[in-house]
């Protein structure tokens, strides 16, 4: 398990704004995804753990090994850290074949074991046919698998991946998810993955850590974070939320209910702990949680009338944009059934309401 506490200030430079990193991070077994927009300091975190940059303060502990400790001046070189690193674009040595790349990594092992390990890895990562070729002569998927195999062959205590899905097309991405799931089940190496791709977080992450401007703003399982973002910023980072300003009108902890005023509509919601009557808050609802129907009579409870502005085809279904900015996702079949409709009703299921 990795435990890291880091603080580092990057001074302002002509080519980059000043920036500081200040966080505490844990990565246990499974895949921990470090998610954040570009410039949030994700790569700096990886580089500090791998030993490429030296934090100003803090401590990095991997299992029982102290990798870095500012207080006692411990700062192991990357060679001594036992961290596998899969680079963006893989950084396979271009002048070596795939087999030689693995051999290079395994070189500190005894000769016989080395050959066995390399052959094993080539087998595990389906690289046997491509083993004799150089990185530029093989497919993107093979390069990717080889870079992961190369990082794992030294039996690292932690695998670091820097934006592995960056620039991959859809089939390659799917293949990559597959490979990483295999790594998770076969190798039991804790993985710390850096990305700004939400898909990757949900496909792979057991734990998710959201980084913003060098600080951790929320962590937990991806589902939990999606279910309850901690603030509007996080909700925006996660994309795909309806964020609507509103006011709390009533709160009843006993019956677990509340009333929320949104424009001229009053919605029933669950009890919101820690909020007070009269609080101006942001209502946060995911597009797929809204229920859309044709308007037949007067709007019922938790329903509002709306005019459809646009319907956009998405791979998963239809995304409906209503006037006033509310977004709802519905299945294609359901949309086909409703598409002749003029007036729409949007229903906000009480259980789906979150306030930030």
């Amino acid at each position, binding site marked *: 398990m990795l435990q890291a506490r880091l603080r580092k200030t990057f001074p302002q430079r002509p080519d980059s704004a000043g920036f500081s990193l200040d966080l505490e991070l844990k990565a246990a077994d499974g895949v921990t995804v470090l998610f954040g927009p570009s410039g949030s300091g994700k790569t700096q975190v990886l580089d500090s753990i*791998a*030993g*490429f940059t030296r934090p100003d303060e803090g401590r990095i502990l991997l299992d029982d090994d102290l990798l870095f400790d500012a207080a006692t001046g411990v700062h192991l*070189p*990357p*060679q001594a*850290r036992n*961290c*596998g*690193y899969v*680079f*963006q*674009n893989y*950084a*396979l*040595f*271009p*002048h070596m074949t795939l087999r030689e790349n693995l051999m*290079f*990594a395994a*070189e*500190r092992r005894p000769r016989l074991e080395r050959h066995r390990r390399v052959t094993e890895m080539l087998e595990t990562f389906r690289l046997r046919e491509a083993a004799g070729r150089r990185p530029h002569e093989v497919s993107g998927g093979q390069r990717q698998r080889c870079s992961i195999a*190369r*990082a794992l062959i*030294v039996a690292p205590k932690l695998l670091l991946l820097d934006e592995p899905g960056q620039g991959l097309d859809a089939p390659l991405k799917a293949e990559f998810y597959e490979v990483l799931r295999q790594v998770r089940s076969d190798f039991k190496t804790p993985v710390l993955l850096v990305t700004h791709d939400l898909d990757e977080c949900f496909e792979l992450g057991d734990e998710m850590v959201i980084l913003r401007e060098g600080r951790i703003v929320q962590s937990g399982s991806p589902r939990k974070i999606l279910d309850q973002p901690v603030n509007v910023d996080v909700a925006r980072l996660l994309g795909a939320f309806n964020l609507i300003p509103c006011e709390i009108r009533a709160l009843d902890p006993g019956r677990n209910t509340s009333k929320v005023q949104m424009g001229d509509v009053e919605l029933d919601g669950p009890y919101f702990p820690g909020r007070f009557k009269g609080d101006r808050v942001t209502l946060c609802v995911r597009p797929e949680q809204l229920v859309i129907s044709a308007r037949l009579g007067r709007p019922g409870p938790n329903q509002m009338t709306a005019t459809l502005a646009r319907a956009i085809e998405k791979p998963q279904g239809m995304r409906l944009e209503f006037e006033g900015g509310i977004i709802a996702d519905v299945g294609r079949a359901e949309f086909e059934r409703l598409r002749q409709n003029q007036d729409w009703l949007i229903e906000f299921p009480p259980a789906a309401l979150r306030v930030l």
Partner: protein
Amino acid sequence: MPIDWFPLWLSLRVALVSTSVALALGLWLAYILANREFRGKEVLDAMVTLPLVLPPTVLGYYLLVLIGRASPLGKLWEMIFGSPLVFTWKAAVVAALLHSLPLLVKSSRAAFESVDRRYERAARTLGASEWRLFWRVTLPLAHRSIFAAVALAFAQSLGDFGITLMVAGNIPGRTQTLAVAIYDAVEAGNGAVARTLVILVSAVALLILTLANRLNPR
């Protein structure tokens, strides 16, 4: 008049030895300059570059002060080898070395710096020592540019005149290199000899430069 071919062989020998020394010394300096951060790094770089801009007489003077018979280095040499260093073909090697080192260091540093840092980082995370990293990753990835730089250094050491004249002198059959022999031939009015040697030197230099250009990745 028969041409004395000694200067050609001497020059080749001097260039070969000096290039070998320059290769070891120059690659080491270039690697340090490209990869290490330390105080005075750019001063070191400037010092290595200095011979490129200083007149040969100045460099020759420095060398005479540094390795002359009265200097500590010169005395040490005499103690070990039993004969002075200056005004021998070995002094010509030192001269050629000084003449060719700056460009070799400059271009090798650029070559090392052009190697993508990620390969070196990857090698480090895989547990490779700095030594193995250099021989197995950095050098192979930069080898074309390094070859080109070495070819240039060879051509340069073949053509040194000023420094050689000052520290090795112009002793026919002992320290008279090609460049010096040409000067001698012109002074003595041996037009035919001068012409032949000039054409020879030019041809060799042209050949080496072409080779260097082909090696250098574009």
